[in-house]
């Protein structure tokens, strides 16, 4: 008997961005997706810097200790600390804001989505796609025999893609200044990163792909080398000179266009 795929997609606005769950497993109940969204809303309520009564806001004001917060706060802060060490301070939740307040939001979204994916998996979900504000987590396949295809937006051409990758179990995160302006700055120099237009990271964990993309983007062109050295992660960068740089591991993920075999590489 041939398997057929049904497609259920649901989008909610959480964490200041749109998060979609595209579930292809017919046997998984709708309320599992609802539970995943409920988890994401809980994370938002707990970690939002824009909600004065969120635990992270209260923690930042010294009204709560980490121990008084829900366990996930400690988990996320541990993750932030590991990343601070790994990036030699480039990624730093404790000093990334001009007002000096604690801001773990650089890892919260990817981490929360991975946990939400776990909710689907525990309920039997095998084939689904999360898209959280441009950060993508895929599992399985969209229909029998076909890999998921993920477009990577061209940083300068709003109607175009810079590349298309495909895979079955993969996380893809992109950092760039093209949506929010120069919001990622290297405080060691005090200037925004202006050598890269965008940096995309593909790898097994969305949390790490997102964090590496952010840190690597802040480092500029040197960051491409740095992120390429992260085991199991593959970078794809578009530089301000219009070139595309990517690792061999990323090349393995690329899908060509459907009519031509020309290289997806800038000059």
């Amino acid at each position: 008997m041939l398997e057929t795929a049904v497609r259920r997609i649901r989008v909610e606005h959480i964490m200041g961005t749109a998060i979609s769950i595209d579930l292809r497993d017919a046997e998984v109940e709708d309320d599992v997706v609802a539970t995943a969204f409920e988890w994401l809303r809980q994370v938002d309520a707990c970690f939002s810097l824009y909600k004065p009564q969120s635990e992270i806001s209260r923690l930042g004001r010294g009204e709560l200790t980490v121990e008084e917060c829900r366990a996930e706060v400690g988990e996320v802060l541990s993750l932030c600390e590991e990343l601070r060490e790994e990036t030699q301070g480039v990624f730093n939740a404790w000093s990334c804001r001009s007002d000096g307040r604690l801001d773990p939001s650089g890892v919260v979204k990817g981490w929360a989505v991975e946990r939400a994916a776990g909710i689907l998996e525990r309920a039997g979900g095998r084939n689904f796609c999360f898209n959280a504000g441009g950060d993508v987590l895929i599992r399985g396949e969209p229909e029998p025999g076909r890999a998921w295809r993920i477009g990577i937006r061209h940083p300068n051409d709003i109607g175009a893609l810079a590349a298309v990758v495909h895979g079955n179990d993969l996380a893809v995160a992109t950092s760039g200044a093209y949506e929010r302006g120069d919001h990622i700055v290297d405080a060691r120099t005090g200037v925004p990163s202006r050598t890269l237009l965008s940096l995309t990271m593909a790898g097994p964990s969305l949390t790490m792909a997102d964090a590496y993309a952010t840190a690597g983007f802040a480092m500029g062109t040197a960051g491409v080398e740095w992120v390429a050295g992260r085991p199991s992660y593959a970078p794809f960068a578009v530089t301000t000179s219009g070139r595309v740089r990517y690792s061999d591991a990323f090349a393995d993920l690329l899908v060509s266009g459907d009519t031509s075999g020309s290289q997806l590489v800038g000059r």
Partner: protein
Amino acid sequence: MPTRAAVAIVATAIAVVLLFSFKTPAQARPRTPAADVSQASPTPSASPSPSESSAPTPTPTPTNPGPTYKDGQYTGQVFQNQFGDTQVKVTISGGRITDVQALQLPYDRQRSAEISQYAAPQLHDEVLQAQSAQIDTLSGATYTTDSYAQSVQSALDKAHA
């Protein structure tokens, strides 16, 4: 100074966007299995040296079916960020995405346009090629999906019907 800031994500007020939720019917019509099996990609392995302009030519897969859509033009939902509204129109022809037009863009695009004057020419051909590729979802800097890409996605959701 171990805690010296490096990545400073400048706090910007996040525009409050309408909470929305939509879903396609749970009993969506069954999709036909793909005619040929597209190459499955392994999880990327470590590869420390990025190559510039020397990557191998991706194998053309002209028969790779990709997702199929119903022909027509589909207007995506309007998505907002603090720079303004974004809305796109997607054209499907022969079951494939043939055009994505931006109907509304935030004013901040002007700055991007300046950069693209020197960046775009080198990427142009490759981009056109990629644009015709069929995709299931889109990765971009945050707010891309919040505005542009989600508008594209919402248009594609209609095209899937």
